[in-house]
């Protein structure tokens, strides 16, 4: 029997793998069959919750410090801002100087989804969202301005539970 078993391992195993996959694919979905393929526009696969789909901007947190723009490997973040005077924190104090954001654009035609901008942001202004359906017929439309980047905030998932005692990241 050893001889037959060796011949099976040599020639039969490969054939049985393809046949089993064939039967598995042809089997109706109800019986646990079906292909691995997802027919994209008609069926959709939910991306993993921490998928790197699109970068969302929380404008209030941004101080236009330019760290993200400077660390971006392909320079796809464009930031412009100006200084403004804000009311003092305490009555009688001097007015504060704050940075006001005029422009915050990310060019997704250039972005390579490395996520360095999200990592370096010290003020929790940038977040990953798993949303991925934002292709455009015109390549120029892939430049998302700060309004559009702000709209992505709705799709940002809740941050995962932190260890006890750690400071929670604000959304």
């Amino acid at each position, binding site marked *: 029997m050893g001889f037959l078993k060796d011949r099976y391992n040599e020639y039969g195993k*490969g054939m049985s793998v393809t046949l089993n996959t064939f039967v598995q*694919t042809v089997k109706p979905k109800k019986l646990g069959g079906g*292909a*691995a393929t997802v027919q994209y526009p008609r069926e959709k696969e939910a991306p993993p919750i921490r998928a790197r789909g699109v970068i969302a901007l929380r404008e209030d947190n941004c101080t236009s410090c330019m760290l993200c723009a400077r660390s971006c490997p392909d320079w796809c973040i464009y930031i412009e801002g100006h200084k403004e005077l804000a009311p003092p924190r305490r009555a009688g104090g001097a007015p504060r100087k704050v940075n006001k954001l005029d422009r915050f654009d990310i060019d997704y035609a250039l972005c390579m989804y490395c996520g360095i901008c999200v990592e370096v942001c010290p003020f929790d202004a940038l977040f990953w969202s798993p949303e991925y359906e934002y292709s455009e017929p015109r390549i120029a439309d892939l430049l998302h301005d700060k309004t559009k980047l702000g709209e992505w905030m709705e799709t940002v998932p809740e941050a995962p539970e932190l260890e006890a005692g750690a400071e929670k990241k604000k959304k």
Partner: protein
Amino acid sequence: MIAVDLPYWAQSLLRVLGGTVAVLLPAGTIVYLFLFKMMSFMQSRLGPMEAGPYGSMQLFAEVGKWLQKEDIQPALADKKIFKIAPLIVLVSTFILVAVVPFGPDAYFTDFEAGVFYALAVSSVSVLGILIAGWSSANKYSLLGGLRAAGQLIAYELPMVLAVVGVVIQAGSMNMQQIVFAQNHGSIFGWDGVGNPYVLTQFVAFGVFMIAVQAELTQTPFDMPIAESELVSGYMTEYSGFRFLIFFIAEFANVGIFALIASVLFLGGWGVPFSWFGWDSMDAVDDWMNVVGPLIMIGKMLALSFLIMWVRFSYPRLREDQLQRFAWKVLIPVSLVNIMLTAILKVAF
């Protein structure tokens, strides 16, 4: 027998039409059913799904795409021969189908030396492939053509020798006679399934199917078009319609060889004659001319499934392994098979 007198031109027209259908229909069926769908299923994919229900119109889309493409020839190519080569390959398919019987009266020619003719004519495609490789003025094409020539010649021998066993047992080279002998035969007096030669000539069947796989340059034996070394072998420089002709010829040949194998080993178009009490060719009822082709298509699909299943499962052999397998394994095995068949034929 059907008694209809048609003028010669009408007979010829019918034969040409029938031949075209008998070549293109299996080719289309095999490409869609096996190459598109079965291969996808074996890789847990769905295959083409957009063109028509379940992608059934995909073939027309593919043909349309190929027809639109530019007909490119390399500047140094031997233009005339370059253009003729795919046609030679396709023509060998057409003249091969001429001897395949589809029913008691549904045949193109009832040729006494049918098996001999089929085996001789099947090597015409080697010429087409060789001159395609030569005329392309491309080293990959040339190497592919030479490999194809070496392989097809090497595997023709075991194929011929395997068929000799069937011919000895049937006592005839006529394909109709071989079908008759199988369906009219009996196994030790029991004629419930006739005597399909796959049961007695199983060695020849195995050798024949392996040799067919190699003749068709399907995957375990696809050194001639090994894409990782030779781009696409002798087809490298062909585009558009000429590539389409090569492609059709490849899969039409799968169908035709499956038909020939089913005639030689699986009983062809017949059902066991004892079921209906037929005892000679003339006694076979006329409705077999309709049912016969359907049976043939069924057997062809079963055998092409086998060919394609092997194709999708195995990695390719190296050139030296491929030649060694033909000369050192298949040919001796089929020679021994011939000897045994001859001895048993005389003994019983």
